[in-house]
């Protein structure tokens, strides 16, 4: 598939790759030891992000490597070049039109989100134009958007680290590594991959969803605004002021206030992305189920739609039926997921499944599903998959196959049941107590943090079975993790920059 947009996408990537390479070469010439010191950590950081996207964030679909590479390349080249150039000039306009003091304080917060997010989002739009059949759901936009963000952050962090290496002393590898480590940790998860994932999801949602144009535009606007706000929060002096304000609090670390401000816009965005991920995974599975209802049954979808659901179900199988049965179940689920991915992915430019026709990968994985079911069948385990899937469901509503299963068309989807859906709130006081402990832990770390994490861990262990996790408890668990992350960041910063 070589659409005109593909070449329009490739040309600026190739051109700016040369510019970025020359600039990187110049910085490396100035600080060769520092460049050698940071290249491995940066590559590892980018690889960790891509693996996280591949294995955890994208539970069902398989993205073509060339398209992911194009996304990363756009972020690492054109987005960096346009973001830096436009950012410099916009900052200039800000300084000249208001004051340089205002530009010094607010320039990074106002200009960088505008220039950089626009450049990265343009990459997602071009990817959509170049490879539309590979964008099967709105979640596809999130994944490719995150890949753009990974490329961007790797090159940006490398640039900042090498500039820091030359700032005070010649080729100061320690300064380069400290800055790179700081930029990895802060803002951590709420960085460029998340910013562009949000924008990419909004773009794909508006582009792919059928009907309800007002809602599609509203979602796009909210996603882009969320992306801009998250970036604004990371760069804004408000976050720095919050950090300074909370430093006076007993036991509070340097970055506690900063990360609290950064987390504010990120939480609703992450919530939306998590819901979108589950919904769209269900849609992809339901589409494959429509092609062959015996291969992917409605009750299988809830287990398959999420990596955690599969792990949970596998643990249950292992506990109840033994390791062999767990391995067999894992084989079945893998085959079902690969079947769903094969159905959703175009085959040589054509839909992989049509009336009376199945692409070779679809046929292959369909056979594998049946073989895996056969392997599972036995006197003791005839309905193993159904038993486990029923345990994973919470509530009477059953998922239905998507109304329009044609590739390239995404409906609002069937009523997919998420295992995490809660029943009426009972025993809310443990959740409230845990949340309180977590908040107290923010002010009185590390003792409070350790206590909050320990209590959260105990509660999670007790209530970990599917369907029992309440929103309040989920919030307490997340707050506990956030506490632990704060402790890690503050400790790392104290280690990297001792005062």
């Amino acid at each position: 598939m070589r659409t005109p947009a593909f070449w329009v996408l490739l040309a600026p990537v190739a051109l700016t790759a040369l510019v970025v390479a020359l600039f990187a070469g110049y910085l490396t010439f100035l600080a060769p030891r520092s460049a050698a010191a940071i290249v491995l950590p940066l590559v590892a950081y980018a690889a960790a992000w891509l693996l996280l996207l591949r294995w955890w964030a994208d539970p069902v679909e398989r993205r073509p490597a060339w398209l992911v590479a194009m996304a990363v390349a756009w972020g690492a080249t054109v987005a960096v070049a346009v973001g830096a150039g436009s950012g410099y000039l916009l900052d200039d306009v800000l300084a000249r039109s208001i004051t340089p003091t205002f530009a010094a304080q607010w320039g990074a917060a106002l200009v960088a989100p505008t220039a950089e997010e626009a450049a990265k989002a343009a990459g997602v739009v071009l990817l959509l134009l170049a490879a539309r059949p590979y964008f099967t759901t709105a979640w596809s936009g999130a994944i490719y958007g995150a890949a753009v963000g990974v490329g961007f952050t790797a090159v940006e962090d490398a640039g900042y680290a090498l500039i820091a290496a030359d700032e005070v002393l010649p080729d100061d590898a320690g300064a380069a590594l400290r800055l790179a480590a700081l930029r990895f940790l802060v803002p951590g998860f709420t960085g460029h991959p998340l910013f562009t994932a949000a924008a990419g999801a909004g773009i794909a949602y508006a582009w792919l969803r059928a009907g309800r144009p007002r809602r599609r535009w509203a979602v796009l606007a909210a996603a882009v605004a969320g992306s801009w706000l998250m970036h604004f929060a990371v760069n804004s002096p408000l976050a720095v002021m919050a950090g300074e304000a909370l430093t006076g609090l007993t036991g509070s670390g340097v970055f506690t206030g900063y990360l609290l401000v950064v987390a504010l816009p990120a939480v609703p965005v992450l919530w939306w992305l998590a819901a979108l991920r589950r919904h769209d995974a269900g849609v992809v599975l339901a589409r494959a189920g429509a092609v062959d209802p015996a291969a992917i049954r409605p009750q299988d979808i809830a287990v398959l739609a999420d990596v955690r659901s599969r792990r949970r179900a596998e643990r249950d199988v292992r506990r109840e039926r033994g390791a062999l049965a767990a391995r067999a179940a894992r084989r079945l689920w893998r085959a079902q997921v690969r079947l769903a991915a094969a159905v959703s992915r175009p085959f040589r430019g054509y839909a992989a499944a049509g009336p009376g026709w199945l692409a070779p990968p679809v046929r292959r994985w369909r056979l594998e599903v049946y073989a895996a079911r056969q392997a599972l069948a036995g006197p003791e385990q005839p309905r193993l998959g159904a038993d486990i899937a029923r345990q994973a469901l919470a509530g009477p509503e059953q998922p239905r196959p998507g109304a329009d299963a044609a590739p390239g068309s995404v409906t609002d989807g069937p009523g997919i049941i998420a295992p995490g859906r809660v029943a009426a709130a009972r025993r809310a006081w443990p959740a409230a107590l845990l949340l309180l402990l977590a908040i107290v832990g923010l002010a009185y770390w590390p003792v409070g943090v350790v206590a909050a994490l320990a209590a959260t861990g105990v509660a999670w262990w007790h209530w970990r079975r599917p369907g029992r996790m309440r929103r309040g408890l989920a919030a307490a668990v997340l707050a506990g993790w956030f506490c632990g992350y704060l402790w890690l960041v503050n400790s790392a910063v104290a280690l990297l920059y001792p005062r």
Partner: protein
Amino acid sequence: MDSGFRNAAAAVAVLAALVALVVVPAVVGQWLPEEGPLPGGPRLDIGYGASLHPPPGARLALVPSRPGAGEVELRVGGLTARFTAVQTGDASLAGFTAHARHKLSRDEGLRAGAPEPASTDAGVRGERGTVDDDGGLTGCYAIFMAEDAGVVALITPVASCEVVPPPVWSAVRSLTFEPAGVG
């Protein structure tokens, strides 16, 4: 063909929007002033805890200056006085000054002459010296470091540090360094 044309047109439109993102601010910036008044207050904050008392009549160069973020450029009496502040951490004065001189030469083509000791009114020790380039431009640099911050001052065009106008050199000597806050 029609869908291919629309696909290409849409892609080109996206690229055009990116080009506009760069070109429009560049054009708008040309219509805006290059100099402006100094921020209010008796002292001018450079950044990282460093500040100075600006010379009378000085104006702020709006493009390179970012008071509070480490860069300030003053225009006074036909001279340009640029002050750059950085966080030096545990670097030594000798190491910092040597690298600063090297960067003046490498990045701006200014060769530094033999340094001589200098100090501010507050007693912060540093060095100063004359710089020149192949094009006939000469100037005076000064480097000071205290409280984990270093400032490099560059005054051009002057023949040597001895002939820097007193109000400008008073501004350099007025440099003070306060401990920086959360960074």
